[in-house]
């Protein structure tokens, strides 16, 4: 990134400045008064500093990211705290969106400001690209500069939670009656325990209740079923890849809600990775790291409707 600042929409201020100085020069030239020249010089100095000063301020400005979340989701604001040496307008560049002012607003004001930036795409980010701008001190001319700021820690932008793939959820239920049914009490009974708020009434153990004198529910062991293996192959087109990742995340989330073990197979920059995911955050990170598979892209068309083999 260049440290050089560039003017933003410079035609109007420069034209106005030239017009003012031109009129001033005419008056001075015709009137010949030293006061006119002295004031004209002050006006020139003010315009000079007002138009070129922001470039110096911007070149000398220091801005860095103080804190940022580790995980976030595309399309959802992520609060990133900036510390700036002077008042700056920051405009996030791709993959982020958002604009705000950061930096001190007074002598005693802390120079840190949290700005809600919205990542538009999934991915793994170590830097944030910003257009910083200022018109200090006189708001006569805005200058901008593009900066690349390192994040304190790697930011995983998970894809949006897309609609889960209904084909796999209905694979063993083709009657249509249980489309939205989620099995939450699967497993073998292990014992009974006192009822706790939130327990399903279907798990109430009436015999134990009668025996214990208080409401008891069955304790179930998790099913020892084989984990569900999901292989996500992302196409080359970034937008299509995001859509596939969103559907994959939705599907994984549904599986996790069912209590299933999920093995996620993706292709990352370091190579193919197959590992279980324990929760939505883990799945989001995995999908954030996933990259398109060029060799498998030929098969992607065949599985384009689901994204899974």
């Amino acid at each position, binding site marked *: 990134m260049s440290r050089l600042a560039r003017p933003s929409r410079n035609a109007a201020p420069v034209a106005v400045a030239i017009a003012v100085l031109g009129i001033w020069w005419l008056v001075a030239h*015709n009137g010949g008064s030293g006061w006119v020249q*002295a004031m004209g010089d002050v006006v020139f100095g003010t315009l000079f500093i007002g138009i070129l000063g922001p470039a110096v301020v911007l070149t000398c400005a220091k801005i860095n990211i103080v804190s940022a979340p580790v995980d976030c989701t595309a399309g959802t604001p992520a609060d990133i705290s900036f510390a700036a040496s002077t008042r700056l307008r920051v405009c996030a560049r791709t993959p982020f969106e958002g604009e705000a002012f950061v930096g001190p607003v007074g002598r005693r004001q802390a120079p840190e400001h949290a700005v809600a930036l919205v990542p538009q795409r999934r991915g793994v980010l170590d830097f944030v690209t910003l257009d910083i701008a200022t018109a200090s001190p006189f708001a006569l001319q805005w200058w901008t500069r593009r900066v690349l700021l390192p994040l304190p820690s790697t930011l995983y932008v998970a894809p949006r939670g897309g609609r889960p793939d209904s084909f796999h959820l209905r694979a063993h239920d083709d009657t249509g009656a249980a489309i939205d049914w989620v099995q939450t009490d699967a497993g073998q009974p292990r014992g009974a325990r006192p009822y706790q708020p939130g327990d399903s009434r279907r798990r109430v153990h009436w015999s134990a209740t009668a025996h214990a004198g208080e409401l008891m529910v069955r304790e179930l062991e998790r099913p020892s079923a084989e984990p569900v293996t999901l292989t996500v192959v992302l196409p080359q087109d970034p937008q299509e890849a995001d859509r596939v990742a969103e559907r994959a995340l939705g599907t994984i989330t549904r599986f996790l809600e069912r209590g299933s073990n999920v093995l996620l197979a993706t292709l990352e920059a370091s190579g193919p990775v197959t590992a279980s995911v324990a929760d939505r955050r883990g799945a989001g990170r995995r999908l954030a790291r996933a990259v398109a598979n060029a060799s498998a892209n030929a098969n992607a068309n065949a599985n384009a409707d689901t994204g899974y083999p």
Partner: protein
Amino acid sequence: MRTLEAIKRANRPGPPEHSIRLRAACFFTVTAAIAACASMGEVSDAAAFGAIGLVALGMVFSYFTRRHPPGWVKIVVAAAAIGVSVWFVHAVSAPAADVTSVEDPLTVLLVSVLVVHSFHVPSRRDLMFSLAASAGLMAVAGAQAIDLIFGFYVVAWAGCTVWGLIEMWASASDGGRLAPTRLGIVLATVIAAAAAIFLVLPAPQVAAKLNLLARAGDGGSIGVPGALAGDAGSPSQLSRPGTPGGPTRVGGYLGFAGSLNTALRGNLGDTVVMLVRAQRPSYWVGETFNTWNGESWSATDSATQTLRQQSPFVLPLPLGSNASGQTDLQTFYVANSTANLVFHAQSATELWFPSSKIYYSTDDTIVSPIGLGKGAIYSVESTVRTPTAGQLRTAGSDEQLPAAVEASSLQLPHAYPRVAALAEKITAGDTNNYDKVESLIAWMGAHTHYSTDIPPLPAGADTVDEFLFGNRVGFCEQISTSLAVMLRSIGVPTREAVGYVPGPYDPITDLYQVRANDAHAWVQVWFPGFGWQSFDPTAVVPLANPAPGTAALAYIGHALRRIPIVPVGGALLTFVVAATFLHWRRSRPLTWAERIAWSAERAGRRAGRPRRPDETFSEYAATLDDLTGSGSGAWRELAEPVEASAYGGHHPPPEAQRQMVRRARRLRAGRQRDEDRDLHPVA
């Protein structure tokens, strides 16, 4: 279509401007500009007060209608602006109007535009226009300013303008404010840039005749037509030749009286006689003399004619001059009553003068029919020829003086054998008149001394003999007369001229300050083809054209030397101590919790209930809530997170901290209504 779109885009109203500070700064800027115009007499005091009141009213109206400015206001403002513009064009283009009086209508135009525009300034861009228009008004006022008093208006206007620009940045950046140190750096940079331009660029020069002034002062009429007046401080009292016991006039050089007694200099003092704005420094000629009687100069054989016409007067070309040469426009502002001579740079060709007639002599002397008292202004255009030394050395003999003039310019009352011998000896190796003049001037520079502290010459003594063959100490009249007589003795046509030297140049006002003791006498020598050329033997070093930078540095140095060291040093020391103390007090940054506590304590002190040493912040906050009587418990709500932060280490997010500090500030300022509005925003 793109142009149409651009115009539409440019006319699209900007977002409403909510900053009261910015509006206040703009109001004071406009007020300073209008007051500056009033001080220059371009608008009456009543009109200025009315305009300022209307601008204040308009600013208030604009503030309250900033969100939804009424459509009719824009129409009325546009119609008024168009109307006053039409009036301006009519005023400056009417046949009866003087083209020199364009500035008063221009002032009225700008003031009117500022007044009507103040009723429609909903956005920041509109306020910016007000600032720019006030700059135009200041330029018009500055064009009339001839003294340093105007500097107060300039400082006030510049300060308000910078304040407005800083508020503009605060508004544009959502509260960004410059720290005092940075503000100081910015202002210093602005001043440095302005000073650099001031020093580098040449001073503006009057290049058009739009602004040539002519105004009668408090001189009054003169009883004897064509006579010289200005004695004893009265511009209408006829002048008398100077005598050793005679009065010394204000600016009263004894030579401005029809004859020049070279035995006397008089005590002229340093009263400012007049201020001159000119394109270049010149000797301001008042009178020329051609007849020397051994003691005094007088003017004879010069035909005086009365010019009767409307100003400007077109003057006949002086003898030996031609129309070619550089134009030199000068405006003379009479500061104290002086002789009724119309001073001018050599070879005046046009005169703007507040009378219906003037008296003009072929020897380049112009006499006013009215006394020139304080406040009188007149302008002169001269055609100045500045031939080089080479041109003067090779000046041909194709243009000869009229016989009578040549005789008078070589006239001597008696033979000066010793003078002639001395002159011939000095100019023995010279083959042309220019070299002879230069040799004689060089000799006088090496062998004579200047002093005004000499006794008057005895009655009947020949000034030249006394000077050249006495102690060779004298003043300018004696030095120049000696040169003139030496030149005449070797056949070089010469005459004596009196007037003023340019005086010190003030780079701020762009005026030459001519004082009484700047009265001077010098020599004019005839050169065929170039006419009368001035030579000053008193100033052997030729007069240099003062660069604005050099003049400004000299001016600053002179001003610095006049600063009283003790009081200024004491004030500076006090300021430094106070600034150091304040800096020390404020150097420790306050946390957000401390700022809230500070706001609470300040609000309590204002309400007459300071915080007791044994009182917790929560207790004090509850007391404050009871004191305000709002019952909202706002201070208690703020006290909880403050104490949680101070004693529990629970810090809210930065944005929440900022909101709480802002809320405390509003509570401190007593803006409960704002507070309620923020808590319950209207959807």
